[in-house]
């Protein structure tokens, strides 16, 4: 047995340490805060090391070897009929990279949480230990989901994360706001749970449907050419849709919920009520990415029937994804422009960036989506952690309108945050966000204008516009936060928190810069070369070639998108600077956008009134219906019947009473006494405590059965004769 044979087992062990940490903290160490965080970080470090060992062992310039022989081990788990449901782990090139970024971001956020939840060691949160227990469990969920080799296991870990998300969003459940319209943590947790549940149920339907159609949930079997071929031909319940398309659509429902895509995006901004490390880990880097990861994983299923060389037909799921992704990306970017809460801007930005990936998948840009997934995780985690540092440093101030001038007071946070912001806006050449976003745009342009897919043209235009908006609101955010003079006392007394907070920031900042260099397109001038796009060669191999109709990569440089992508980000940032940076806002001064956008501003500020719409369309009618059912069906109809029956019975009873009193009083009394006695001693009639009674009963049954078996037929015949049958 070589080291390589041990790797699958090592992979299977990755989710374990954090789970043990969760159990240990919850059960035994919840009274000792420092011990708790040591256990959690120790476990995460162990998981991180194992993940890195696995990653660096399998990484290679060419991913085909790993794609054909992935790390894979499985055991039969639940015998169900002839086939056993199997559980196992699978690491293919895609999984390897996801494992890589998940372990890094989780570790960074664990370390960061020490500083954040204790405010730099000064003031420990009363539920500090519980926090570490929850995030440990969460890490288990995410790591487990990454290594899962089948949909069922993926779903289980997916739900574990959902639970943790609920628990952590509502972590400060006792918090209430004076404004009743403002969502408090308790409501936010519930909202997140209920909203994602909608998606999860749809996804579970998809899983059940796939299982009933194919009899397997294992990725390798499910996504094999053979199975996909069968699914492609199999008609579904809905005319015009193949089984593959229906299953793909249902599964995509899960992505919509988990990755907060329109129309289920409403929970994510409110989820910002949770502690900031939670926002960073769960609601930016890992859990919401899991939704996209699942879509990427299931891409072969989603694209069944898509053949670029023969007419380039997008499949139904792909069209849906492209539309939802494009719309969500653009919509969220516009909303982000008008938000004042530093975390809410990032939340909408997250929705928008995730939507880029969904849209990319929708037009077949598999590798680009995966690439952006990872790059985004790094820079968005960085931005969230930076915002958390700012929040703690400036005494829990979240309103950007009350910040300003923090650059001097929190230099490390400021520099790393700006790095993250530039990466997010896709600032050319130096930042990971540029390479990943450029890849999506380039592919979309190529598909739209060179391959003639009309939908891709729409995708390209809106994503490009969205990129411009992204750069603008990033510029706005940086200017409002760091430039000018402090607009409140809190901001004036801001300071760096502690090393546990800014060391993770620096680590993530490095990835936000350098990660992009492993994915430079071959056709890129100067920097591009035959081996420059390592990521594409490695991850792109995941799907093999037989079934995959991935969009071919552009073979030559398209000039227009190339130039545009160089221009979009600086232009947007410049616009942001011109509005907010050149003449910094003063305390109390309104946002210049209010005037500039006119009637559009309230729409954006209020997030297109989607929450209000849902309230009016779903929530209020549901409450009304419940009240109606309660009033008429329950109270009037059912209770009415009962009451009338009771009234009738009472009447009868009164009549009876006279009869009773006169006639059978004595007899009834005796009977009630008997029943009372039976109730009291009923149990004791059989179980008297006397052995002889027990033995008698045994003997009775013995004789009874003996007579029955020996003379049963004779007795039966005798009775029949007696009755004359």
């Amino acid at each position, binding site marked *: 047995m070589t080291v390589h044979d041990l790797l699958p087992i090592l992979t299977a062990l990755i989710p374990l340490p954090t789970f043990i940490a969760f159990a240990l903290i919850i059960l035994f160490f919840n009274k000792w805060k420092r011990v708790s965080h040591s256990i959690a970080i120790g476990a995460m470090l162990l998981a991180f090391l194992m993940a890195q060992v696995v990653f660096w062992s399998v990484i290679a310039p060419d991913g085909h070897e790993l794609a054909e022989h992935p790390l894979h081990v499985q055991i039969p788990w639940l015998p169900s009929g002839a086939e056993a449901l199997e559980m196992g782990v699978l690491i293919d090139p895609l999984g390897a990279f996801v494992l890589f970024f998940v372990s890094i971001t989780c570790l960074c956020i664990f370390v960061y949480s020490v500083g954040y939840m204790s405010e730099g060691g000064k003031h420990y949160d009363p539920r500090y230990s519980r926090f570490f227990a929850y995030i440990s469990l969460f890490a288990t969920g995410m790591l487990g989901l990454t290594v899962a080799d089948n949909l069922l296991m993926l779903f289980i870990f997916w739900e574990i994360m959902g639970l943790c998300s609920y628990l952590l969003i509502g972590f400060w459940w006792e918090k209430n706001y004076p404004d009743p319209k403002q969502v408090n943590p308790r409501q936010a947790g519930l909202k997140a749970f209920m909203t994602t549940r909608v998606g999860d149920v749809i996804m579970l339907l998809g899983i059940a449907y796939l299982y009933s159609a194919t009899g397997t949930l294992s990725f390798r079997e499910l996504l094999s050419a053979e199975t996909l071929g069968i699914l492609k031909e199999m008609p579904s319940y809905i005319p015009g849709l193949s089984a593959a398309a229906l299953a793909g659509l249902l599964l995509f429902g899960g992505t919509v919920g988990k990755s907060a895509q329109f129309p289920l995006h409403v929970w994510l901004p409110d989820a910002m009520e949770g502690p900031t490390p939670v926002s960073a880990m769960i609601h930016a880097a890992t859990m919401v990415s899991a939704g996209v990861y699942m879509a990427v994983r299931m891409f072969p299923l989603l694209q069944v029937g898509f053949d670029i060389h023969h007419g380039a037909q997008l499949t139904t799921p792909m069209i849906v994804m492209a539309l939802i992704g494009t719309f969500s990306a653009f919509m969220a970017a516009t909303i982000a422009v008008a938000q004042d809460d530093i975390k809410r801007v990032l939340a909408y930005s997250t929705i928008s960036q995730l939507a880029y990936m969904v849209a990319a998948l929708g037009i077949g840009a598999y590798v680009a989506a995966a690439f952006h997934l990872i790059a985004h995780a790094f820079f968005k985690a960085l931005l969230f952690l930076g915002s958390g540092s700012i929040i703690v440093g400036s005494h829990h101030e979240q309103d950007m309108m009350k910040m300003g001038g923090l650059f001097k007071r929190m230099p490390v946070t400021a520099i790393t945050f700006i790095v993250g912001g530039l990466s997010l806006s896709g600032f050319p050449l130096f930042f990971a966000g540029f390479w990943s976003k450029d890849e999506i745009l380039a592919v979309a342009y190529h598909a739209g204008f060179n391959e003639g897919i009309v939908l891709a043209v729409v995708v390209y235009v809106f994503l490009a516009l969205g990129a411009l908006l992204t750069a603008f609101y990033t510029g706005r955010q940086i200017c409002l936060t760091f430039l000018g003079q402090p607009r409140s006392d809190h901001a004036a007394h801001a300071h760096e928190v502690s090393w546990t907070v800014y060391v993770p920031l620096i680590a993530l900042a490095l990835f936000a810069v350098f990660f992009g260099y492993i994915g430079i397109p071959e056709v890129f001038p100067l920097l591009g070369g035959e081996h420059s796009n390592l990521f594409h060669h490695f991850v792109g191999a995941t799907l093999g070639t037989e079934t995959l109709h991935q969009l071919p990569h552009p073979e030559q440089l398209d000039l227009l998108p190339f130039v545009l992508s160089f221009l979009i980000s600086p232009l947007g940032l410049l616009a942001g600077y011109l509005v907010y940076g050149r003449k910094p806002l003063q305390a109390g001064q309104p946002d210049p956008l209010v005037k500039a956008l006119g009637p559009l501003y309230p729409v954006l500020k209020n997030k297109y009134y989607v929450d209000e719409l849902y309230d009016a369309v779903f929530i209020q009618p549901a409450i009304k219906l419940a009240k109606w059912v309660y009033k008429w069906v329950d109270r009037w109809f059912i209770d009415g019947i009962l009451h009338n029956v009771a009234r009738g019975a009472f009447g009868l009873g009164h009549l009876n009473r006279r009869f009773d009193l006169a006639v059978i009083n004595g007899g009834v009394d005796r009977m009630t006494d008997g029943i009372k006695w039976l109730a009291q001693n009923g149990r004791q009639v059989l179980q008297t405590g006397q052995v*002889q*009674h027990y033995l*008698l009963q045994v*003997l009775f049954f013995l*004789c009874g059965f*003996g*007579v029955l078996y*020996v*003379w049963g037929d004779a007795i039966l015949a005798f009775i029949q004769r007696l009755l004359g049958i």
Partner: protein
Amino acid sequence: MTQLVLFVIFGAITLAAAIAVVTARNLFHAVLWLLLAFFGVAGLYVLLEAPFFAAAQLFIYMGAIGVLIIYALMLTRGVMRQQVPLVNDQWALVAVLAVALLAVLSWLFLQHTWPTVDQAVGPDSLRTLGEALVDPGRYGFPFEVASVLLVMALIGAVTIVRER
């Protein structure tokens, strides 16, 4: 003919003694009746041409076990003098059930033709028995295990009754 007469005599002794065992009001008397019942069984063994069993019955049951019971009774004087009630409130029901069981079993016995050996028991039956008990291919192993059972029962009995 003689055999039949003897069988009736021994059978009657056994049955009568057995009935007396359960009806005797004095426990000591009951034990004495029990010894008589053992004797009747020994007589039946003789009739079955099983002299070894008959002897074992006399020595072990009438001798050892009987003496042991009497010895135990003597040690617990209180019980010896006591006139214990013989029946409890469910005797009638039990009688009915016992009769029913007897009826079922007797009917079955009469219905079935039981396998018999037609030749007489050989002179070396004792030897055969002894060999069967120690032959590992026959009852050697259960025999050994029975010895473990006895040791265990001995230890258990001592443990339960010894002074603490």
